């Protein structure tokens, strides 16, 4: 059946199709989740950096360095360091030296996390890694 006054069904369908194609094309430009992810990671990274710096200023990093040198248990000091992390976030700390993990504390609750590293020049170099995710 043909309409006498205005557009046909075919015209409307092709117009809708055209809009749909254009919308798809335009939406592919934007990936809002990536952007949010970057900002979220930046926030977590900043918190991780603060946790490490606070630990340094409080003297916990020196304590940790002494424990690494004398090959003592690190968990208690790592726990002290993790206490600077806001309670609504999850924090994981570990110490890495000569290809092995010397000690770790905490778990992450999300695959999206921010990370900061602190290097210690001891007899053999050690890296303290702090990772923060949503709680």
């Amino acid at each position, binding site marked *: 059946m043909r309409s006498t006054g205005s557009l046909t069904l075919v015209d409307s369908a092709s117009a809708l199709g*055209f809009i749909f194609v254009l919308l798809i094309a335009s*939406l592919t430009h934007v990936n809002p989740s990536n952007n949010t992810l970057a900002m979220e990671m930046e926030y977590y990274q900043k918190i991780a950096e603060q946790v490490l710096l606070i630990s*340094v200023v*409080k003297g916990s990093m020196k*304590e940790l360095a002494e424990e690494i040198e004398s090959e003592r248990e690190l968990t208690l000091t790592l726990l002290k360091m993790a206490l600077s992390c806001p309670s609504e976030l999850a924090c994981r700390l570990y110490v890495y030296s000569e290809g092995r993990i010397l000690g770790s504390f905490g778990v992450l609750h999300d695959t999206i996390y921010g990370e900061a590293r602190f290097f*210690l020049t001891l007899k053999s170099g050690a890296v303290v890694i702090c990772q923060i995710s949503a709680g």
Partner: protein
Amino acid sequence: MPDKRRVKDAFIWSASIVYLCAILLFCSISQAGMASLISETTRNRMASDRLQLTAYNLLFDLNLYLYNKVGEEAYQIAVSGGSPTLLSKITLEHWLSTAKNWLKVEGIDGEIDTPYFELNQHRVSSQDAVLMNELALPLSDPLYIDAIDINADLNVSLRDMRTKVRFQTLFKIRSLNPIRIFGLNEIATKFCKEIQIIAPSWGSDKSINEMVKDVEIQFRDFARSFLQKASTQSYASTVSYEIHVKRVNAIQCQVIIKLNDLNITDMSKYAYGTACSKLARINYRLQHREIRWEYSTQFTPKDFGDVKIIGNIYVNSA
């Protein structure tokens, strides 16, 4: 004219759809632009934060490294009874090369150098509160006198290899190691020097047996009062000695005071050194020092002999 009208309607619809789509496309492109701008800013900010943390990492790590290195060196100097000037043997080459390797691993193009580095006897408190906090030390303490001031400048210039973000700064390290190596050295050398000066006046015109006892009494009196004075500044000491008197000829006898072991310990609550990866008190040790002098006697020539007394003195810190 239905055909004309249909064409007109179709044109209006098409034009409005194109207009709508153009607006959508424009919004989408500008949104994408904003998103990439935010993303780039975030990336740069993350890189800049990381560079700042790395720079502070270098500052705090150098401070801790110097504190440990100075502690180890002071421990060795004390054990061997050496001079604190030996502290000048400490260099920063090892730290600089390790730190540069670390930067490379982190993907940071970095230049670091220490244009100024000095270790001095502590006199006036000019320490940095944050760096002292890092070492878990109070900013000032009466027992810091004669400790070791650590002064260094650290120039840091960092560039993130991915984002090309730069960070440059100059840190001043004004820190301290509380081991009072200057004080320990001063007390030990002064003790020996003073004995050398006043000992020739010790002695008596009695028999050799009595003379050796007299010399011991005077030596013990002197040593006790000297070391007790030091104990008020939190130093503990032990001296093991040997006094030897022998007749040389009719009018002279020789007196020898052997300081077999003079041990002075820094009892300040912060003064610890590292020995075999363990914290240890700092013991300044002088061994086998000898003070000898000739004493003119008036006792009878038949009183020939050779008398020796061995003893120890212990003085705890007050």
